[in-house]
């Protein structure tokens, strides 16, 4: 029996209705009393069936819709009346009627034009709120569905006064429903999630309505989403972990498909949508609750869920903001520096997993900021005092450090190469240099050095070198080479490995890991050396080689060191194959052999190894430069060694004592003169090929090697220096300078052009030989005596200096400048070497 007409609150109508409702034939009665009611009420009343099971009366609903569209001014009253009816029906627990009323409201909402909706929406939302306030799941789900429909409508009039905080609160609460029946629970949670999605959609696009990004809302929304995500089936999470691009398989449809969707995937979609809409300023307010949730629910260890969550965030956030997430994660790491090492390790692992996603978008300062903060954490962790007896804590801390390094490596891997160089320079700038350690904390500083060099190695590992002048700028090469001469053998290996990564452009470094005399078997890949590279070699190549032989000469050199140094030299040989390099590398090989022969401080095994290195490099160089004569000669040496000194062919463990250094036959060694002859025969330039025996030995090194170290100008490459050294005869004993030969006259120049170069070279070579012979054969005393004439020079210099010191000019400068007055005083005797 229908009694609703009695419940009108208009007193007059109420009275009338009361009278009329006495009539049993309610329908017809309604029909007649309806005439006395406003038309909109009649229309509304007519949409309700006599029997609630019949559902909405379609034809009458159409009438109502048509009416409200044709006279939109009535819409707000219709809404008000409907809302009133709904709240009455809720109170009386007449749920079917409530559902019908909501259906009608939904239809009206969708049918009517946006501009007339404003007031109707108020009634609508009030009704939705009413439904949400009930304890019945069915009505709450209904409310959420209606709300979603509303959220999808685009209103054109802003509603400044409308507040959504109840909806956010209630929907968040629904997301946490723990209804005893699983089905109901799922649909309640889905209703809550959809509602949240609706609120977000409704508010983000419009600046004038409530700011959904306020922490007060985000603190409710984000944990609700995460709570539902974390209760996903474990399989889902791991699947998603493997497939980071895994966007939601099926786009959820808010009305249909409700049966198949589980709350976790809907929650994930919501999160994606939310994060995707976040602008830069809002990221923090979204991310912060995530951290809080993960902290409180202890989801860092194990961190599957954390990784999953952050992947979802990283893949849905607007790309240009992705690094902000990384920054925030780093900040969170800062704040949780007191938490367990395991937790921090997990965080760092998450960082490592997501940092690559952000790397592509990081630019400029943000890159270094991230690196800096990673290094800071690393330093902090290393410097933190852990009780020695707590083995577990130490292991945990170690893992934390490792994961930080891998995060850094992961980050660098995805950066463009030029930024990798920047990062490497940044890291080496942070690396403590041996000798400058804080004396109070040497072990920690050493560890830090190791760690940072490891970082560097990881970064350089991912670096694809193309042009050496960019991959090894002086500012980077310098500290690197300095570190390569440190006391710590392990550090030196690390530095060499870094150099390998940077020098190797053709993936040869694994093949060249160990000295080998069978070069053809290695299948090395190499290109022609470009102009830029040969310029790089001109500027820095000799330095690198000098550095290598110096570090071979250190007392605590190990097998690893020797192998690493060999590898570096071999890579130089392969990557920088120029004539100049060939000369240098041959000299280098000879120098190494010389160290092996003369340096008695070295372990016998290492001395043997050095012989192997020398031969291997020699063979490699002759093959890369493809000098037939040298290859031939190397084959001879190999043959000799195979017969008489097989120990000198490859690395051996232990067998050192058997072979006395003196006992090595000359034919088993590389001989300078033979090499020089081979070179000459092959028509190679042997300008630099003076037989400086052990030029890299500490004793003689200072004569020229150091000058090249400190003057990285174009004059300092080896051949030039040697030439100069050979020509600065005035400082050499017993040889008079033959300036007469080099008179610059027309005739002389003509002669230079006409004369075959060979004869002149021969003359020069002869000259050099004489000097060297002199130095080699003359007893030391005699040398000293003969060079005592330098005193004359000294006197002269002193004379000049005293004279000049009166003038306000710098003595060095005047010495170089051609000063007419003082020219006769020193012009004759000043050796060329000093001018440079």
């Amino acid at each position, binding site marked *: 029996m229908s009694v609703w007409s009695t419940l009108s609150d208009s007193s007059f109508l109420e009275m009338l209705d009361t009278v009329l409702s006495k009539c049993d034939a309610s329908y017809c009665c309604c029909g007649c009393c309806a005439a006395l009611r406003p038309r909109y009420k009649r229309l509304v009343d007519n949409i309700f069936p006599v029997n609630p099971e019949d559902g909405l009366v379609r034809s009458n609903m159409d009438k109502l819709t048509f009416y409200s569209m044709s006279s939109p001014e009535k819409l707000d009253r219709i809404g*008000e009346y409907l809302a009133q009816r709904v709240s009455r029906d809720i109170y009386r627990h007449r749920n079917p009627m409530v559902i019908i009323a909501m259906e009608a409201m939904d239809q009206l909402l969708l049918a009517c034009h946006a501009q007339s909706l404003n007031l109707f929406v108020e009634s609508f939302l009030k009704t939705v709120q009413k439904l949400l306030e009930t304890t019945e799941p069915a009505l709450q789900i209904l409310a959420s569905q209606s709300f979603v429909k509303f959220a999808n409508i685009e209103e054109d009039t802003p509603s400044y006064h409308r507040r959504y*905080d109840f909806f956010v609160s209630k929907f968040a609460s629904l997301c*946490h*429903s723990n209804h005893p029946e699983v089905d109901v629970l799922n649909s309640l949670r889905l209703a809550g999630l959809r509602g949240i999605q609706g609120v977000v959609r409704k508010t983000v696009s419009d600046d004038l309505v409530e700011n959904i990004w306020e*922490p007060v809302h985000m*603190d409710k929304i984000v944990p609700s989403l995460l709570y539902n995500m974390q209760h996903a089936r474990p399989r889902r999470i791991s699947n998603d972990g493997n497939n980071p691009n895994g966007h939601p398989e099926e786009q959820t449809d808010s009305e249909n498909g409700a049966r198949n969707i589980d709350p976790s995937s809907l929650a994930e979609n919501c999160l994606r949508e939310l994060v995707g809409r976040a602008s830069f300023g809002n990221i923090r307010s979204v991310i912060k609750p995530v951290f809080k949730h993960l902290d*409180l629910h202890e989801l860092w260890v194990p961190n599957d869920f954390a990784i999953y969550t952050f992947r979802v965030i990283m893949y849905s956030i607007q790309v240009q903001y992705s690094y902000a997430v990384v920054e925030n994660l780093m900040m969170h790491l800062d704040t949780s520096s007191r938490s367990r090492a395991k937790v921090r390790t997990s965080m760092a692992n998450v960082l490592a997993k997501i940092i690559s996603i952000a790397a592509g978008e990081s630019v400029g300062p943000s890159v270094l900021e991230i690196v800096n903060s990673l290094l800071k954490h690393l330093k902090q962790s290393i410097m933190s005092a852990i009780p020695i007896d707590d083995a577990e804590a130490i292991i945990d801390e170690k893992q934390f450090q490792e994961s930080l390094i891998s995060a850094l490596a992961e980050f660098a891997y995805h950066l463009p190469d030029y930024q990798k160089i920047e990062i490497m320079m940044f890291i080496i700038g942070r690396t403590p240099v041996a000798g400058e350690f804080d004396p109070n904390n040497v072990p920690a500083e050493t560890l830090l050095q190791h760690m940072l060099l490891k970082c560097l190695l990881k970064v350089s590992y991912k670096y694809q070198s193309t042009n050496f002048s960019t991959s090894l700028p002086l500012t980077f090469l310098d500290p690197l080479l300095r570190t390569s001469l440190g006391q710590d053998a392990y550090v030196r290996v690390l530095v060499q490995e870094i150099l390998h990564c940077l020098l190797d452009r053709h993936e040869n470094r694994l093949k060249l890991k160990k000295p080998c005399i069978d070069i053809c078997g290695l299948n090395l890949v190499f290109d022609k050396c470009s102009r830029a590279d040969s310029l790089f070699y001109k500027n820095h190549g000799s330095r690198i080689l000098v550095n290598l032989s110096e570090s071979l000469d250190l007392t605590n050199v190990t097998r690893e060191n020797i192998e690493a140094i060999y590898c570096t030299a071999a890579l130089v040989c392969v990557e920088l194959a120029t004539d100049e390099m060939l000369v240098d590398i041959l000299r280098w090989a000879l120098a190494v052999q010389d160290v092996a022969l003369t340096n008695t401080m070295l372990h016998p095994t290492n001395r043997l190894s050095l012989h192997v290195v020398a031969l291997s490099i020699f063979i490699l160089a002759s093959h890369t430069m493809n000098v037939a004569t040298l290859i031939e000669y190397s084959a001879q040496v190999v043959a000799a060694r195979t017969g008489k000194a097989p120990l000198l062919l490859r690395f051996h463990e232990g067998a050192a004592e058997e072979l006395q250094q003196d006992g090595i036959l000359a034919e088993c060694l590389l001989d300078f003169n033979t090499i020089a002859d081979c070179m000459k025969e092959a028509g190679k330039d042997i300008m630099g090929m003076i037989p400086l025996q052990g030029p890299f030995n500490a004793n003689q090194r200072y004569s020229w090697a150091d000058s090249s170290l400190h003057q990285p100008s174009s004059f300092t490459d080896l051949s030039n220096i040697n030439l100069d050294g050979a020509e600065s005869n005035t400082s050499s004993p017993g040889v008079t300078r033959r300036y007469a030969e080099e008179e610059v006259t027309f005739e002389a120049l003509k002669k230079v052009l006409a004369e075959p170069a060979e004869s002149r070279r021969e003359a020069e070579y002869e000259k050099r030989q004489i000097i060297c012979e002199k130095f080699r054969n003359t007893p030391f005393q005699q040398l000293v005596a003969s060079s005592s004439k330098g005193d004359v020079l000294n006197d002269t210099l002193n004379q000049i200096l005293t004279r000049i010191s009166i003038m306000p000019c710098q003595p060095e400068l005047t010495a170089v400048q051609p000063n007419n007055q003082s020219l006769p005083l020193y012009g004759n005797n000043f050796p060329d070497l000093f001018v440079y």
Partner: protein
Amino acid sequence: MEDYKYLFKVVLIGNAGVGKTCLVRRFTQGIFPPGQGATIGVDFMIKTVDIDGLKIKLQIWDTAGQERFRSITQSYYRSAHALILVYDVSAQPTFDCLPVWLREVEEYASPKVLRVLVGNKVDRDDREIPPAVGEAFSRMNNMYFIETSAKDCSNVDKLFQEIARELIQTMRNQRQETSQARQPGTIARTPIPMTGPLVNMRQLTLMAPPKSPGQNPTAASLDPPVL
């Protein structure tokens, strides 16, 4: 159509298992659900009470006591008009945690929020916290105090009714204040000391129009606020 005069948001907080949900259920639905599971996140109930002929709608947010839900529960503090801090009189630890809860309230809730301390489960024989201890704590922290039992329904209705009554009073006084402030030519009002919500409330009560005790029989039954 308004079916209520005022709407107040009341949030229940306190350790897990002190009986927050049971209190709410008892009040809103009149039932005592035995074996009530732990609340997840936040639960929501609504109840309209009648105070002196005024319909007051109470939105009651029942929060989870478990630590892991703290992130979401804290977000509900801010908009609350009243916070009910519940402990279990038969479990000392729940009482010991009160200072922690108060710190959270200080941090997240509005400074003007009405704070009520509730010792629940007075029906139990194994009481560990005597009423005087709870009362002393409430005095120290400027809170209202009441002991309840959701099981035998003692003081449950009173708790919420008193809260509603206090909140109405606050609301009225606020209104009065604003209207006074708007009156032109008013001599500067004596500022109300804002040392705490309780002090504030008391003073406001004094300023409110006098009520006869007959009209307001339960007014004194809450522990009198202390200055």
